């Protein structure tokens, strides 16, 4: 007898336990159910039997929905959460489930499921489709428009050499009416948004600069930024605002170009065949 009843649902399990058909489910599956379940667990080996395709499909569907909902806050989804809430006993086939779910997401929604950093065991969803003019009208109300602020901060960071001090950020944003201590019409608490929310979503990194008095922090790009956008794109954004060409900032342009080339190269540098060195 396999660990899982073939048909999900109470009927199958009841039949196994041989309880009377007329009994209300609550009474038959109450303490008796738990006891028999406990007994079964004790004797059954940890590896469950093969699962039907239908069960796997169902699990994949649940996983896809879970990932979509979890992505609402844009906080990276942890593997442990996936195991706890969705996968449960199917953890031995988790890689397969993840892979299928990723295929489903890409094929149906155009979202890629990527690991935030190698071996970090957290995942995010990235759009594979390039945004189009008309999308903006269809988007509807997606909450506060924080991406604009984020892009400005990212641009600032990149143009100033990939790292800026928090004080510099506020000096800049103050001119746009965004203050760290004053409540903002749209963003509410801008300091919290930038130093906590964006960091939690892994768009930014927020580190303390040592030996500063008063304490100061520096902001850098986070891993999610590198996945969702690129230096070249941010440079182009800045250039568009200035109504100039990206090449007008040669240092940054070179840096962005280098990053583009690095991305275009195949990922695994280690396995790339190297020509035998000739002496």
């Amino acid at each position, binding site marked *: 007898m396999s660990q*899982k009843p073939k048909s*999900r*649902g*109470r009927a199958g*399990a009841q039949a196994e336990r041989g309880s009377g058909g007329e009994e*209300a*489910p*609550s009474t038959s*599956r*109450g303490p*008796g*159910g738990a006891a028999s379940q406990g007994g079964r667990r004790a004797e059954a080996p940890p590896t469950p039997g093969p699962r039907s395709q239908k069960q796997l499909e169902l699990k994949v569907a*649940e996983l896809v929905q*879970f990932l979509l909902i*979890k*992505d*609402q806050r*844009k906080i990276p989804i942890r593997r442990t959460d996936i195991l706890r*809430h969705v996968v*449960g006993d199917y953890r031995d086939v988790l890689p397969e489930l993840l892979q299928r779910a990723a295929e489903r997401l890409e094929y149906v*929604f155009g979202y890629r499921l990527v690991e935030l950093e190698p071996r970090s065991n957290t995942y*995010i*969803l*990235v*759009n*594979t*489709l*390039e*945004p189009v003019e008309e999308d*903006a009208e269809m*988007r509807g109300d*997606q909450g506060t*428009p924080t*991406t*604009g602020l984020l*892009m*400005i901060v990212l641009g600032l960071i990149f*143009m*100033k*050499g990939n790292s800026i001090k928090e004080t510099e950020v506020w000096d*800049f944003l*103050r*001119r*746009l*009416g965004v203050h760290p201590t004053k409540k903002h*019409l*749209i963003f509410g608490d801008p300091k919290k948004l930038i130093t906590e929310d964006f960091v939690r979503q892994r768009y930014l990194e927020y580190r303390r600069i*040592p*030996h500063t*008095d008063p304490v100061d922090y520096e902001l850098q790009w986070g891993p999610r930024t590198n996945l*969702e*956008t690129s230096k070249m794109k941010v440079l182009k*954004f*800045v250039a568009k*605002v*200035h109504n100039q060409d990206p090449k*007008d*900032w040669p*240092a*940054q342009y070179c840096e962005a170009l280098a990053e583009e080339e690095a991305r275009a190269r195949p990922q695994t540098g280690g396995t790339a065949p190297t020509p035998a060195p000739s002496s």
Partner: protein
Amino acid sequence: MKVEAAAVADACSDDLSCGEADIDPSLLELVDEEKCRSIRKQYRQLIYNVQQNRDDIVNTASESLTEALEEANVLFDAVSRTREAALDAQFLVLASDLGKEKAKQLNSDMSLFNQVAFCDFLLIFVGLNWMEDDGRDALSDCDDNIVRSFWETVQKEATSWMLQAETFHFIFGSFKSEPSARKPRLEHRKRVYRMEENGDMPTKLRKLDLCSNQEATEKEVERILGLLQTYFQKYPDTPVSYFEFVIDPNSFSRTVENIFYVSFIVRDGFARIRLDQDRLPILEPININHVGEGNDSSSHCRKQGVISLSLQDWKNIVATFEISEAMITNSY
């Protein structure tokens, strides 16, 4: 004094390498507290100065960092104990951090990026160029709508440069009005998961039965039945006028509810509605006497009646029957 000097000399000669063991012990005696204190004070002063002028040192192409380092070098020549050396080390760390920042500055100075200009260009980009002359904090003082439109325009442009996945929301929202969409979804997962594991699930489901107003209805019906039976006990063999019983002159909705509950009573056979001589409905109790009277035909066959009551009807009835207070009192 002498003993101490000798001891110090011995200790020092152990520490220092053999070649330098010729240090005159008398020299070491002269390392008095005053001098050390003064050295420490100078170090602290140096550190403080450097920290205060940090911005100046890092941002400008000044020589002040080099000068500070040279000053520290001079001070270090006089250092002979660990306490001062520790301060020197602290200064070194500070100086090297500043040096690192200066180097970073070097990079970005080549970038020609002016953030003040960026700010102005942003405003121009959005189309707010007429605000430039108003001074720096343009957006802080102006209209809410302008602020909103500024950020929306920036947002629109920004999103076209990012591959953000759109967030997933149910079109009509989730069932529960308060918690976010996530909660019911996860709860559903948890339930499904638990169902396969232990038998607690169905019990839970019963408790969460959303038709809990079923029980409320039954309770109400029982309560009204109680009232009715009390009345019948008080006035035996006197049927009560249906309208007088159900109508609440103060509340139309309560009246309708009462009619609803009384219909259950009639359906379950605890009372009977009949038309009296004036062809007005009356409520009669069903008890053994009536059954004994041989009205079997009427007690066995079921009849159906439909009562419709509009607001106007209700008002008319209240006026006609001169109902001043409800017979069915509220439970709350």
